[in-house]
Structures are given as C-alpha cells and as structure tokens.
C-alpha cells in the first residue's frame, strides 16, 4: 500500500504546488490589473480617504474642493461651489462614473501621487496619516469665465478666450452646462438618477462644445483662405469685379453670397463684407494643396495639446481640393471643413501673436499642500501659422471687418478690435451656426476669442455671426479689459 500512499501524497503535493503557482498569478503577476478593476470598491475607498486637492481659478477662487464627511466609508466629498460655470473645465469626480476633464488628467496630482516625494507625503505613507492632495490652479479666470457664461446666456454654444501671447485659456464656456456636484455625491441612487437625466438630455449638457465638438466654421475660415492666398502670390490687391455668384469649373451649382448680395473688390473689401464669391474664386486660383497646407499650419487636422480632452478640427481633404467646386466650398468654411471653437480661437490668437500659435494651456501651476509651486506650465509655440508680415496684413484685414464690415457689433470704444464673422450653413432647414472670432487690442493683443452659437440661437434663421456672436465676443473682450485693466 505504501506505493499508493506515496502517489497520493505526491499528487497532493503537486496540487499544493499548482495552488501556489495560481496564487502567484492572482497576487503577483495579474495583481495590479485585478486590483485596479473599476469594480474593486477598495480602489474608490482608498481614493476617497485622500483629502483630494482643490482646483482653483487663476484668480484663486475655488472651483472644486473636498470636504470631510462624517461617513465612515467615503471620507471626503467632492463639491463644486460654482459647478455649472466650470463643469467642462473641472469635470466631475464620481464614485460611480469615475472622473472627467481636469479631475481626470490631474488625478495623480490631486490625490497627492504626482510630483516629488515630500517629507510630509513620506511620513503620511509610512505612518498612515491622511494624504493631502496637491492644488491644481487653472489659467481660467473666474471673473472672465462668469462674464463669458453670462454673455452667452441661454444660447447653445461655446466661448473660448485665450491670451494670444502665452496660450493661457482665460475662459472656456460650453452651454448648456451641468453641475458636477450632482453626480459626485455619495448617494449612489441620486448620482445614478442625475447621470441618467444628463445623458438623456437632448441639449447634451455634458458635451464640451468648446473643444470636443466641431462645427462648420463658415466665413471665419476665410481668414485661412486669405492667409493661403497671401503666401501664394495673391496679395490684398487681388480684385474681382462685383458679382452675385461664382460658378466653379465642373459643376452646375454656383457659390452665392449671403442674402444673394452682389460683392467684389479687393481682399480688404471682400473680407469686410464676407464676400463668398470672392474667396471661392480666390481659392480656385491657389496651387493644389495650398489651402490644406495653410489650414494644417493653423492646427487643423490635429487635436490641440490641451490638458482636457479635445478633438482635431477637419481640413479640406486632398480629394476635395482636386474638385474646383469643393475647393470653392471649403474656402468659405463649408463642405468637409469643420472646426472646434478652441481651434478657431487659436486661429485668431495666432494672427494676433505675429503668426505664432502658442500651445493652449489650461493649468497654470500645481502647488503642494504647503503652497509651494511644484509644477508650472510655461508658454511655448505650438504652430507657426504664417510669417509675421502675413499676420500683420491679416490683422489689418480683420480690423476692417470690425471697423466697417460685418463685425461692427464687436467694436470697443478706444480699442482696435480685429475680427471675423461666420454664418455657417448646417443641415437643410436648420438655422445657421453663428461664429465670431476676434482679438484685441489689434495693435497689442491681450485676448483672442471665439464665440459659437449653435443653430441661430434665439434669432433662428435670421441669425448671423455679426448680429448674434459679435456682440457676445465684444462683451467678453470688454470684461477682460476691465478685469485685467488693459
């Protein structure tokens, strides 16, 4: 019998060995993957045991903060004092739905896991003290953000305001908005209910229209067509006689002007009046690929490097530009061309900054709990869109738009404003999107701004960029002038 007993013993030992190997798989090899599974409540409990760092505006107002709760399990509650105003920048921090926007990209810093290991952090880790997260300071100014949100009012749309010389995002508003506090509570049922309502809302309040949604840029794209022309031997003096329509080769559908007007003249007159037939014709005179190259130089086709999610704007495709008809439509910001409000603000900012587009920055700095700055974002050039002389010419052209063109509603007494309107056709039967991009002062730029109002706002089919969006842009620039005193 001993032979059999030895075999039984051997089998048992082998099985213990298999159990040991399996334990190594679960607790060592696959451990990190398993432990970080979103279903593992421990991950959340651990995170909520941290005094998550606050998010501040550039003017030191609290955007998000964590408060200690009497609750045993989730020790800190995340609240957003002015939730809806900053929702698309701060994002949310929900025990059920995870994180978004800055709450997500700066999670490491906010939970105190980023940056250097300070003595305080080390002792917290060793002796189990409460970890205090770092503070994230955004470039967004609370005053300007509120002014922008007020200017946009109840319109569906977005506003992006940048400092053209530093790339700092001064305001980023998307409307309608939501209050992240409602999905960050510790009441799972309330969170779920609020989340479902937000998801079902046809206004898509959780969508960041400013950076995550593209729209046909309409006539604001004429700046890029003009920039392409200026760099390809077609100067401001390029003139076409006044006409009501332009029929590109190989097509039977002509390009018409807004309201079937008759227009023409040189580039300054054409841009001031936002003359479709002029820019359509101009584009067909450009070398193959020139329009796409200039659009790419301005950042189209690439998601701008921002610390919150954003999407790439769409270039005219090579195929589009082989067809005179599609080239003509692309030149006036229709057909396949699409831009985010952020991208269009960057276009204005690039021209304002002598042709150099600064990398957009939404986080100013990160501070440790003792208020030492441990991380600071520095201005850097993202794109060289046009040479300085072309930028200067475009500035002059855009000043004309505001001085005596379609954008007069953006005028600010005593300040030179450069701008461009856009009234982009959308689906048939839908009111147009109203755009305005601008920067001011034109001679020493402090702010570049893009305003988009979806589907005509409250003006419906009567809406134009000049009527609807230019006054909004003017209010934002005026507010910045008062806030920062330029």
């Amino acid at each position, binding site marked *: *019998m*001993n*032979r*059999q*007993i*030895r075999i*039984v*013993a051997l089998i*048992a*030992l082998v*099985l*213990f060995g*298999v*159990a*040991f190997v*399996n*334990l*190594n798989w*679960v*607790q*060592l090899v*696959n*451990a*990190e*993957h*398993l*432990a970080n*599974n979103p*279903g*593992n*409540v*421990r991950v959340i*409990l651990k995170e909520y045991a941290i005094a998550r760092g606050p998010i501040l505006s550039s003017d030191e107002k609290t955007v998000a903060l964590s408060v200690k709760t009497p609750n*045993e399990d989730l020790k800190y509650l995340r609240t957003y004092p002015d939730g809806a105003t900053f929702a698309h920048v701060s994002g949310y921090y929900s025990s059920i739905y995870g994180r978004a926007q800055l709450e997500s990209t700066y999670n490491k810093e906010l939970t105190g896991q980023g940056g250097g290991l300070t003595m305080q952090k080390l002792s917290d880790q060793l002796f*189990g003290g409460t970890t205090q997260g770092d503070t994230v300071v955004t470039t967004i100014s609370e005053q300007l953000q509120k002014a922008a949100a007020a200017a946009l009012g109840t319109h569906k749309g977005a506003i992006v305001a940048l400092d053209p010389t530093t790339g700092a995002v001064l305001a980023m508003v998307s409307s309608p908005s939501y209050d992240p506090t409602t999905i960050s509570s510790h009441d799972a049922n309330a969170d779920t209910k609020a989340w479902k309502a937000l998801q079902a809302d046809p206004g898509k309040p959780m969508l960041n229209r400013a950076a995550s949604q593209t729209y046909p840029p309409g006539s604001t794209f004429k700046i890029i067509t003009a920039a392409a022309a200026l760099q390809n031997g077609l100067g401001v003096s390029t003139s076409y006689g006044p006409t009501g329509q332009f029929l590109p080769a190989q097509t039977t559908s002509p390009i018409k002007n807004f309201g079937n007007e008759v227009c023409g003249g040189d580039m300054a007159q054409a841009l001031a009046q936002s003359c479709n037939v002029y820019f359509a014709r101009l584009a067909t005179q450009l070398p193959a690929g020139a329009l796409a190259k200039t659009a790419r130089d301005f950042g189209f086709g690439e998601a701008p490097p921002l610390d919150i999610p954003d999407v790439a704007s769409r270039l005219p495709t090579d195929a589009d530009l082989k067809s005179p008809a599609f080239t003509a439509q692309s030149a006036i910001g229709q057909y396949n061309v699409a831009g985010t409000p952020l991208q269009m603000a960057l276009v204005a900012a690039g021209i304002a900054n002598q042709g150099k587009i600064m990398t957009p920055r939404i986080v100013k700095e990160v501070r440790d709990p003792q208020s030492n700055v441990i991380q600071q974002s520095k201005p850097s050039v993202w794109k060289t869109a046009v040479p300085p002389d072309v930028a200067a010419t475009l500035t002059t052209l855009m000043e004309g738009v505001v001085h005596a063109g379609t954008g007069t509603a953006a005028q600010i007494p005593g300040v030179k404003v450069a701008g461009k309107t856009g009234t982009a056709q959308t689906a048939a039967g839908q009111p147009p999107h109203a755009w305005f991009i601008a920067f001011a002062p034109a001679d020493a730029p402090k702010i570049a701004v893009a305003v988009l109002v979806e589907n005509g706002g409250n003006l419906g089919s009567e809406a134009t960029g000049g009527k609807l969006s230019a006054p909004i842009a003017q209010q934002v620039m005026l507010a910045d002038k008062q806030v920062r005193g330029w």
Partner: protein
Amino acid sequence: MIVPAVRRNTEASLLVLASVVAIGGYWLTSLSRSPGVPRHLALYGGVFVASYLVAHLAVRRFAPASDPLLLPIAALLNAIGLVLLARLDVAYRPHHHLAGAQLRWLVISVVAFVATLVVVRDVRALARYRYTWAVAGVAFILLPIVPGLGMTINGARLWVRLGPLNFQPGEFGKVCLVMFFAGYLSERRELLAVAIRRIGPIGIPEIRHFGPVLVAWAISVVVLVQEKELGASLLFFAIFVVMLWVATARPVYPLSGLVLFGGGAFVAYNLFGYVRSRFEVWLNPFGSPRGHGFQIVQSLFALATGGVFGTGLGLGKPELIPEVSTDFIFSAAGEELGLVGTTAILCAYAIFGARVFGLATRCRDDFSKLLVTGLGTVFCLQTLLIIGGVTRLIPLTGVTLPFMSYGGSSLLANFVIIALLLRVSDNLAVDNLVGGWTPGSSESLADLGPAGGGR
C-alpha cells in the same frame, strides 16, 4: 524514553511560536485602529495559550511519543484564523463577536481532543466498531435532509439546528466514514483486489465488489441533490475511492469512480442551476460581477489588492467579501498578509499533509495505514478544494478551510482528527521501541513489489 521528551519539547516551543502569532496578530490588528494594548488581549491570549497548554500537556501524558508537528501546525493555522476573525469583528457595523465564539469552540474542541486521546488508547481498537461508524457516518451526512432538523444556509442544506446551536454534521460524518472505510478495507482488501478478468492492462475484480463503490457514490449523489453542495459530495466520494485504490492498487476502482462521479456531475450540471452557475461563474466571473460572480470576484479583488506583502493586518477591506469568515477566510489572509502570508499558510497545510502521509507509510497495520491515509486525504482535499475555489483555480465549493474557517463543527472535527493521528503516531513509536505488535508486518516488504500483485 529520551525521544518522546525531545519531541514534546519541540512541540512546546513551536506552540509558543503559534501563541506569539495569535497574540501578536491580535495586537497588531488593534494597533491599526488605536494605539495601546487592546482591552481583551489578556482574555483572548489567555484562552488561546491555556487551550493549547492543556492540549500539549494531554499529549505529554497520553501520547508522549507522537509526532511533534501536527498540533503546532494546527495551532498556527488556528491562530491566523482567530486573528483574522478578530480583525473582521471590528470591521462590521455593529461589531461581530466571531473570534470570541471561535475561542469558545476551541475550548470545546480541546476537550474533545483530550477525550479522544484518553478514550482511544489503541487506534486499532476502532476497527472493531466499523459498522457502527458506517451507520453513524451515513446518519451524520444525511441528517440535514431530515425535515424540521436540517437548515439551508446560502443554498446548501448542510446544517442542523439543535436548540441554539447550528452545526454541520457532515464534518463528523466524514471522520466516521474514514474509520468505517479503513475497517472495511483492511478486512476485505485482498478479496477486493483479486482480478478475475483483464481489459488490456487493467484487472477487473468480481462485479459484486463494485457494490460498495456504488453505495458511496449513491451517498455522494444524495448529498449533491438533497444538500446541494458539490464540494461535500466530492469529498465523501473521493475519500472512499482514494482509500479503495490505496488498499487494492486496482486502478479500475478510481477509474470507475471517476466515470461515475463525472457522469453524476454532468447530469447535475444539466439538472441543477446551482451547479451550472458555479461552473459558469468559474469560467467567466467578470461576466456577472454583481450577480453570481460577486463572491469570487470580491475574493480575487481582495487577493490582488493584498499583492505580495499584503495591506497589513487591519488595513485591508476583507469584509467586502461575502462569507469571508467561513469559506473565504483564505482571501482575507491574502488581502492583509499578502502572497507571503498565503504561501506560508499553504506551506503549513502541505507540511501537515506530508507528515500525515509519511505517518501512513510507516504504519505497520492495514487499519492504521488506511485510517491515516483517509484522514490525510480528507484534510488535503478539503484544503485544496476551498483554496482552489477562492483563488479561481477550480469552481467554488462550500467546504471549510481546516483550523482557519469560522465554525465549531469544523474545528471540533479537525481536533478529533489530530487526536486520532497523534494516537496512531504514538502507538507506532511505542511499537517500534518495544519491537512488538506484528500482524500484517510483512506488508512493508511486499509493498516494494510491482502493483499488480494483488495488493
């Protein structure tokens, strides 16, 4: 006798180490919450130390030449289990009192342990009552089916309610069955091993000898169907098949057993939702992480969170695992003690198993040999079933982890098992010293020959 004294001193020093684990672990758990000496440390440590001191003194007195490792390993596992229970007690709101209850069971178990050592002076005497064990074993196992007596907990009908107490008679049933099988097989093994026919290399004994296999199978099927517990069913059946094979060396018995059990399991899979869901959850636990897969997924999370070194006692969240005090105590150890801790626990069980099987090979008589083999098989199989289950190596079954799981019946039965093992070990050492007692001693030589020799 010098040897027994050395063995007992070894046992005593190892028991001191186990006590250090029990007291130190308890203290550490408390330190994770508040500084200072925990209020009940003296009582908790006192009961633990006193229990094992009594057990040790009883061994010194009644089985002085027995194996010095079995009791300390049991004490170590018991200590870890108690520390984890004490740790779980404070995690619950309101606090539970599992550790205290388990300590009471420890006291009762030690009484049973001492009683077994005192009453059973020669383990071979137990062979005489083999049919009594058979009846008792079957009765214990089937007791929960009796209406009005049996209780269903978590879908399995393994419990019996007696007044204020719930207990699992199956824990005693398996010990009785091992004693019966050992008695029955030691008497009949030669008869059962005679091959009357051959199919290829496999010798086939007379067909009527398969009767007992069928009876054991029938019992396991009843457990599977009526008590709805795959693990217990497998355990009862496997003990018999393994012991039968050890006794006869006829592979046809385990093979036919495997076929029978496989067939039964296949039918059960198709007939019973609980068997099917166990398998489905095993294959894809994350398919229903909040449904049937909840338990195993929580267990895996706990083990993975523990990682290599664990969170430290009192610093994890083992209370998130359902049934953590009983079936999933190993996962709690994995979370707070890490891979280092679970490996140590695994080693303790493996060493225990190796000692038991080693003892079996040295036994001089068939009954002791089979008894020890059977007890070793029960111990190892049960440990592997539950550890494999909670780590998703095999489908989850609801058997207890010896000496660690919360539960009086399990602890009590396991203490009786060590008492029997120590008794065999002591008998053997005494026999060796006096060179006496020879029936069946030709055994060891014959065993060196090839298998098909009718053994």
